[in-house]
């Protein structure tokens, strides 16, 4: 298949699909065609499309579950004027729970509560599951067999990420003994004297 034609077909598919499309999914859509492109043809055409859209209001972006056509964030100011409705807002409690599941998966609700120092409301877990950002991965083999949670591809897709590695890095935790040597020293001395 001619490369320009393949690009146009892919463009039509990305435009028509409301979900990201992976190279494998795209490959399967051509099965049975006389001129069937192979996976490399598709990858090459996608790269050219990404390039083609580089200076436009749209971008072809790779996220966790494939590529999708999306409106560039740069033009959000004008796009927002199209709609009356404000984007959904999520509470701090929800974002903190989500971030703990993302960085510490698999994690139980109890473990999240330990780190946050407060209980996690059922509503938060329900909202996260309803949004398909979080899924149960199994049960932890401790008394009560609590559910272990992890994040989904949809979570990465929503936050415009390809992999969990693209999440912002965590701040470092400093060790109390290393950063406060005099204090510990004095304490130890005092203790030794008594």
């Amino acid at each position, binding site marked *: 298949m001619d490369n320009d034609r393949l690009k146009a077909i892919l463009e039509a598919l990305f*435009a*028509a699909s*409301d979900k990201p499309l992976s190279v494998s999914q795209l490959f399967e859509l051509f099965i049975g065609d006389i001129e069937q492109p192979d996976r490399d043809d598709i990858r090459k055409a996608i790269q050219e499309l990404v390039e083609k859209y580089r200076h436009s209001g*749209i971008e072809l972006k790779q996220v966790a579950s494939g590529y*999708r*056509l*999306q*409106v*560039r*964030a740069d033009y*959000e100011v004008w*796009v927002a004027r199209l709609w009356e409705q404000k*984007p*959904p807002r*999520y509470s*701090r*409690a929800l*974002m*903190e729970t*989500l*971030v*703990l599941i*993302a*960085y510490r998966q698999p994690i139980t609700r109890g473990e999240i509560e330990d*780190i*946050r*120092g*407060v*209980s996690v409301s059922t509503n938060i877990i329900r909202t996260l599951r309803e949004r398909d950002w979080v899924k149960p991965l199994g049960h932890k083999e401790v008394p009560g067999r609590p559910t272990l949670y992890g994040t989904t591809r949809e979570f990465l*897709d*929503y*936050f*415009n*990420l390809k992999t969990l590695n693209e*999440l*912002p890095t*965590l*701040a470092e*935790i*400093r060790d*109390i*003994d290393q*950063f*406060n040597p*005099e*204090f*510990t020293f*004095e*304490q*130890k001395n*005092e*203790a*030794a004297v*008594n």
Partner: protein
Amino acid sequence: MEKGYNSAASSQSEMPFALVQGEPLTVIPQDLYIPPDALLVFLEAFEGPLDLLLYLIKRQNIDILNIPIAAITKQYMEYIHMMDHLELELAAEYLVMASMLAEIKSRMLLPRPIETDDEDDPRAELVRRLQEYEQFKKAAEDLDALDRLEREIHLTSIDIPRFDIEVPMPEVSLADLMSAFRDVVNRAEQFASHHVDREPLSVRERMVIVLDRINADEFTSFIDFFEPGEGRMGVVVSFIAILELLKESLIELVQSKPYAPIYVKAKS
């Protein structure tokens, strides 16, 4: 929250009132006064005891690795007492933290026996937890700042013209619908105030029909909503529907003088 940090920090005076272990200690209980209404909003802004402690520490630019336990405990307890005084429902976690702080404080004050030579600083566990929480609190802010769907990024909504092949619509069966209903009712029962299944649907349906027929500019005659052909039951249903709409302030009834015709219009 950010606002809370800034305003508190600016009203902060950093005069050390005591030296503990060679470190200046600043305790400013005076600045704890906040009007009760504001306090309520303020406390709701905290995600729990760790968050409140971090706030107290940040506000005074204290190094998290060297928390003046006595001072922080005192301030923390003032908040707890205020919440208690305002009869705010205090999450148990706040009290657990209060006792943890008190314990650390007493262990710091008491000379420690020799056999606990290897023992860590009594504050170590608290510091670890505070740092860990701070780490994820920051991560949550970072995640929130990422470009995301529905906010900075939007999916394209490119039309698909009517092809010969029809775009399929999702199929839904009545059983699917009922299963959703059952779930939602079960859930609603957890909230005491909602009763999903109380009213007969015929009234709800009639309410919609009434709303459909009226508008805010014109008057519709009250009696037009009653169809004698529907029989007694139908008339009663219409009447209850209108009362229900009136109760919810969705419609207005207008009568120019006693015994004059009654008109219905949408609340403008």
